[in-house]
């Protein structure tokens, strides 16, 4: 089937990933291009760090903080949707609602004077802020499981834990995944700003460029982090559709 073999060529995820990899590894080759576009600058290429290293550091910070956020957030949301934790639900929802009004930058900014500069405040701030969409999405997802399924599961003899793992979580997964997606995308953005607090991320060329009026730096950083965000978003979209197969089979 020739059509199926070439289908991946039309896949936007493939293009985004390819562009990201190509740009990150080949940034040095673009130096003459930037030099020509910005003749007034004597340093047209950000060379304090390789873009590969920056990308890796950025991904690492986001991955670690998101992992923590997922574990804590899903656990908290599950607790609140069980009978034992129902009392705490309004409290948790209030905290989430208030938390969402605080800009992610602020969480970062407050963490620094308390903890100091570097990666640690960034990790803590990202993990804290990343909790919110995940908690909210998990609660909504669990609530969206049809009552009939829950009743049937209990009636058949599934214990509480089994019901959760076999029936409720898989059905809540699409919404949950959407929440994780939102959280990760926001975290990628906040991690970009984290370079103002001394973390090594793809925001560093942007911040340095803004401070030093070096537009080339800014564009280089912006392009890479923009591509990273788009690629990750497409990955989540693909994963979501994979887990959703049972909704519209065939």
């Amino acid at each position, binding site marked *: 089937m020739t059509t199926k073999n070439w289908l991946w060529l039309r896949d936007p995820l493939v293009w985004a990933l390819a562009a990201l990899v190509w740009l990150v590894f080949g940034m040095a080759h673009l130096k003459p291009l930037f030099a020509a576009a910005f003749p007034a600058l004597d340093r047209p290429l950000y060379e304090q760090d390789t873009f590969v290293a920056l990308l890796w550091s950025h991904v690492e910070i986001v991955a670690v903080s998101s992992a923590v956020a997922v574990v804590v957030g899903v656990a908290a949301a599950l607790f609140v949707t*069980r*009978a*034992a934790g*129902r*009392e*705490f639900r*309004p*409290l948790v929802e*209030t*905290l989430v*609602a*208030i938390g*969402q*009004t*605080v*800009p*992610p*930058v*602020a969480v970062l*900014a*407050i963490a*620094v*004077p*308390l903890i100091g500069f570097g990666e640690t405040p960034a990790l803590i701030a990202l993990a804290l802020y990343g909790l919110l969409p995940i908690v909210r999405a998990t609660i909504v997802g669990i609530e969206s499981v049809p*009552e009939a399924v*829950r*009743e049937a599961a*209990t009636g058949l003899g599934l214990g509480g834990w089994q019901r959760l793992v076999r029936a409720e979580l898989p059905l809540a997964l699409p919404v949950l995944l959407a929440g994780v997606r939102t959280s990760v*995308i926001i975290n*990628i*953005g*906040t991690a*970009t*700003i984290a370079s*103002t*607090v001394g973390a090594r991320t793809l*925001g560093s060329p*942007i*911040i340095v*460029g*803004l401070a030093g009026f070096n*537009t080339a730096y*800014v*564009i280089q*950083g*912006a*392009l890479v*982090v*923009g591509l990273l*965000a*788009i690629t990750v*978003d497409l990955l989540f979209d693909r994963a979501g559709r994979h887990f959703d197969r049972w909704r519209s089979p065939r």
Partner: protein
Amino acid sequence: MAALAIEQGARGFGFVRNRVLCALVVAGVAAALGLAFVTVAPNRLVSGTGITLPGLLVGARALLLLPAAWLMLAVLTPPSRAVHASVTVSGALLLAGLVWLAGDEAAAQSAHLASIARVSLGGGFWVLAVLAWLAAADALQRLGLSPAWRALVHAAALLPLAALLGNGAIDQLSLLKEYANRQDVFNAAALRHGQIVAATLLPALLIGVPLGVAAARSERLARPLFAALNVIQTVPSIALFGLLIAPLAWLGDALPGWGIQGIGLLPAVIALVLYALLPIVHSTASGLRQVPAGAIESATGMGLTAAQRFWNVEVPLALPVLLSGLRVTTVQVIGLAVVAALIGAGGFGALVFQGLASSALDLVLLGVLPVVALAIAADAGLELLGCSLESPGR
């Protein structure tokens, strides 16, 4: 199923009647004993020594313990409307008391310290303040009042704080000293932040709502539109700001005299409008799409023209969804405008990043607290507006 739930929920400590309040009280006691309530530093550069709450409760100040004691007792009292109401009041009183205590201690300390000495609010204060407010909010929610009444109670609870702020009782705290030193900068930042938000929301609505209407009507338009807007939302804000610099700078060179610059207010507003478009277009479109087909059909059957149908049937029924989208957008823009300071747009973000650079928490707070207050106020205000629009005959 309900019976199962009730049974499972009844497990736990038998004598604790309010588990949420219990958790808050336990956390509060831990914070009071473990975290510094205020920190005293000889000057701005040195980090100060902390004083915990027990150390401050001498003399008349011990009165502060009364609302706290009632909150602890309420954990063991069988719940009733009266108890919840009293918890709300106690929580509010405790909050006001904590603020007053901090201000009073600052005043007392400043009396015998040099004028450059700093008395700052410590982690203990913040945690206790938040816990007190949460206790009050949770009890208020258990009373089951309408949103309008709840908003009124919240406002009433904030009155003592406003009074303390107004008559200078807490002026010796470093946060307020910082404000006093930078009042002009603060006011300019406040004005600029408001300008950014207004300059973003207006065009966003003017462009977004028509686009949303078009998207609701045409699936062919909707798909590429949402795909594009989604890409914009995904890209980090600072990257979007950054990518706009070059084209705008080029445009500025090409069209001198228009005041177009790559940095400053214009790229910030343009980028923010682009960000605001997605929630507004999406909520307009989904608001229109969820108008029941039956309502439209009967409207047509009654003989209304398309325009009459739009304004009399579709718009009122889609409005709640749109308002909810506007609410989300406003909060988002207020927050994103902070980042705009990095490209020279000003606003509260300037205070935040300046404080960040000089590691001055007070300056950071001076930028963050107004933003949070503004966001909460906008959120609550729009929620009330939504509720008031919904009540007649729904």
